[in-house]
């Protein structure tokens, strides 16, 4: 359906929308309160009155030293949580002196090659008081180990260390493509870290099951919802298979969603997510602990919705998206800076992004009422529709024999590629409008100021990792890597303690990863276009 001006009336994901909704839509709706099962309306009775969402801005600069300085600044200014962005070589498990790291070091975040860099990154930061979120996946276990060893050196017991690891490998195969090993050994490593933390680091959020990257890869809202929850269930299944109890690990699983520009659809997505998770956890897995049933999530506003044209408009886009996240009941939020589409944000744009959240929290009144759209004819109808679409996807995934099989068959990749191509085609035909891009274009675009990373920073990092290799106790390092290799070869052994020991011996990230690659092999996906 189109409007008179030719623009689609369906949601950005293609869900048809009626011109008006009536009481018909809520006739069968059961009475439900926030803080009660199935938590459609939120996991807390008092919403944001009890506690505001956490404003968690993701950051990381070239080197560990510069990033450490930024952290001290943020902590001095009242921030209590840190969030680490790593550069591409670190995310891909390779050292800064690997040939393919050239040109990538420190570009999208901080470069961490070994324990030495992590010591610098966290220098002077009390790990018993500050929680840290680390956005990393394939090599997540190694970065966690580095963090724990720094705590150890600070004399902080692991039981007091808190934070979040993204550690969500499944969505890498589905969307972000930062995989290294084939899916099976990757899953083993994730479950090893969940099991290890349940025992040794009980305050650590072990996996942040992420829809953000699925959405950014071009999926619809319903696909983001369905694929993310399906990944969640896959982790639950794998933990149960390992012999863990559901209430022992489920409370430490959390989620990470995208907040896109289609306002109502996004709120419906967040509401449906809570309801589906609670229902499956209780009915399918028999979870008892309320924290196992409550879906907690972090939100980031949509990077893909930002435009390089008239970038100031991104401030408005981000505000709309952030409001959707807040009305959807997010636990924490990252708002994008207007220039993030071009490069790392400048100080000014980063400040505006944070201020946008503060406006929502303190000026708009959005924080005063829990689930203010609950009971709206339109909202409830859309929430139900989201839930139905997700359930239909769960069916199809189980026909493939589960998430990993569906990944190998290219199912998710194909669904996402189709959705993204459909959307692109709609844009080409102006059936969707992006202001400043395919309509309302200005000819005289002003260039905006961009933060650049100096080439010297790259060389310094390369020198640093080489120096670490020169100075360390090589015999101890070799021994540690050898024991890791042996453990990797025996499928029943938890790899975490071996990785921790290798980190203590200053083995580099690339060496630890390489040792596991020798055993597990590399993954390449077939072309799904």
């Amino acid at each position, binding site marked *: 359906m189109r409007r008179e001006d030719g623009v689609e009336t369906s949601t950005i994901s293609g869900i048809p929308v009626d011109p008006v909704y009536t009481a018909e839509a809520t006739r069968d709706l059961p009475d439900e309160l926030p803080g009660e099962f199935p938590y459609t309306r939120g996991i807390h009775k008092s919403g944001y009155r009890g506690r505001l969402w956490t404003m968690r801005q993701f950051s990381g600069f070239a080197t560990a030293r510069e990033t450490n300085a930024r952290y001290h600044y943020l902590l001095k200014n009242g921030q209590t949580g840190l969030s680490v962005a790593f550069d591409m070589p670190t995310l891909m498990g390779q050292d800064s002196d690997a040939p393919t790291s050239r040109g990538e070091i420190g570009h*999208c975040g901080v470069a961490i090659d070994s324990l030495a860099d992590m010591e610098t990154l966290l220098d002077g930061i009390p790990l018993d008081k500050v929680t840290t979120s680390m956005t990393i996946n394939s090599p997540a276990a190694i970065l966690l180990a580095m963090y724990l060893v720094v705590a150890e050196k600070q004399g902080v017991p692991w039981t007091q260390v808190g934070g979040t690891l993204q550690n969500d490998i499944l969505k890498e195969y589905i969307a972000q*493509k930062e995989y290294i090993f084939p899916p099976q050994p990757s899953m083993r490593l994730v479950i090893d870290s969940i099991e290890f933390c349940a025992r040794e680091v009980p305050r650590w959020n072990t996996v942040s099951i992420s829809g953000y990257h699925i959405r950014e890869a071009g999926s619809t809202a319903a696909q983001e919802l369905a694929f993310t929850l399906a990944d969640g269930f896959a982790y639950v299944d794998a933990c149960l298979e390992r012999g863990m109890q559901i209430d022992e690990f489920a409370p430490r699983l959390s989620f990470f969603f995208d907040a896109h520009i289609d306002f109502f659809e996004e709120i419906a997505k967040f509401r449906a997510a809570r309801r589906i998770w609670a229902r499956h956890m209780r009915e399918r897995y028999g979870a008892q602990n309320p924290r196992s049933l409550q879906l907690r999530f972090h939100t980031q506003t949509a990077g893909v919705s930002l435009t390089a044209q008239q970038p100031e408009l991104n401030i408005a886009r981000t505000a709309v998206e952030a409001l959707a996240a807040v009305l959807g009941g997010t636990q924490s939020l990252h708002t994008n800076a207007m220039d993030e589409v071009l490069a790392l944000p400048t100080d000014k744009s980063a400040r505006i992004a944070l201020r946008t959240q503060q406006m929502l929290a303190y000026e708009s009144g959005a924080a005063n009422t829990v689930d203010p759209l609950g009971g709206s004819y339109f909202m409830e109808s859309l929430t139900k529709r989201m839930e139905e679409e997700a359930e239909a996807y769960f069916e199809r995934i189980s026909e493939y024999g589960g998430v990993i099989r569906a990944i190998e068959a290219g199912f998710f990749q194909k669904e996402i590629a189709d959705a993204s191509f459909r959307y692109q085609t709609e844009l080409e035909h102006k059936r969707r409008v992006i202001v400043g891009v395919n309509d309302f274009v200005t000819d005289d675009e002003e260039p905006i100021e961009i933060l650049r990373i100096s080439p010297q920073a790259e060389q310094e990092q390369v020198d640093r990792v080489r120096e670490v290799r020169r100075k360390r106790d090589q015999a101890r390092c070799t021994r540690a890597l050898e024991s890791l290799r042996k453990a990797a070869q025996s499928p029943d052994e938890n790899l975490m303690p071996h990785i921790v020991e290798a980190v203590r011996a200053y083995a580099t990230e690339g060496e630890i990863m390489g040792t596991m690659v020798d055993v597990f092999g590399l993954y390449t996906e077939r072309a799904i276009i």
Partner: protein
Amino acid sequence: MSAVQAKPLRIVLAKVGLDGHDRGVKVVARALRDAGFEVIYTGLRQTPAMVVEAALQEDAQVIGLSLHSGAHMTLFPAVIEELKKRQAGDITVFGGGIIPDDDIAELKKLGVAEIFTPGAPLEEIVTWLRKRFPDG
């Protein structure tokens, strides 16, 4: 006219650099296929040497590079250099990704034929290729 061209333009599309953001390159691949071109997609994390080798083996007239990690000033010129080294400077190179205006000017000076930034209509890429290769 038959839909099949006797000499379809052959284009190697590659993701260089370490990032895995392949949404854009996949959309472009489909659009080029629908325009009647033969697209050889070589996948993620290709080094300049791999890209050039693929173009030579596949007898491609065009290389399309996609990159979102910010390493374009290192990797795009490296592809051009490698082409020269292999006496294949006649192969046209274009790029896509998040690339600031200053860098675009610099890359064009170095021999990259065109850069398409996010928001560029697919039709623009197709038209540009058709103009450059009227026989393909």
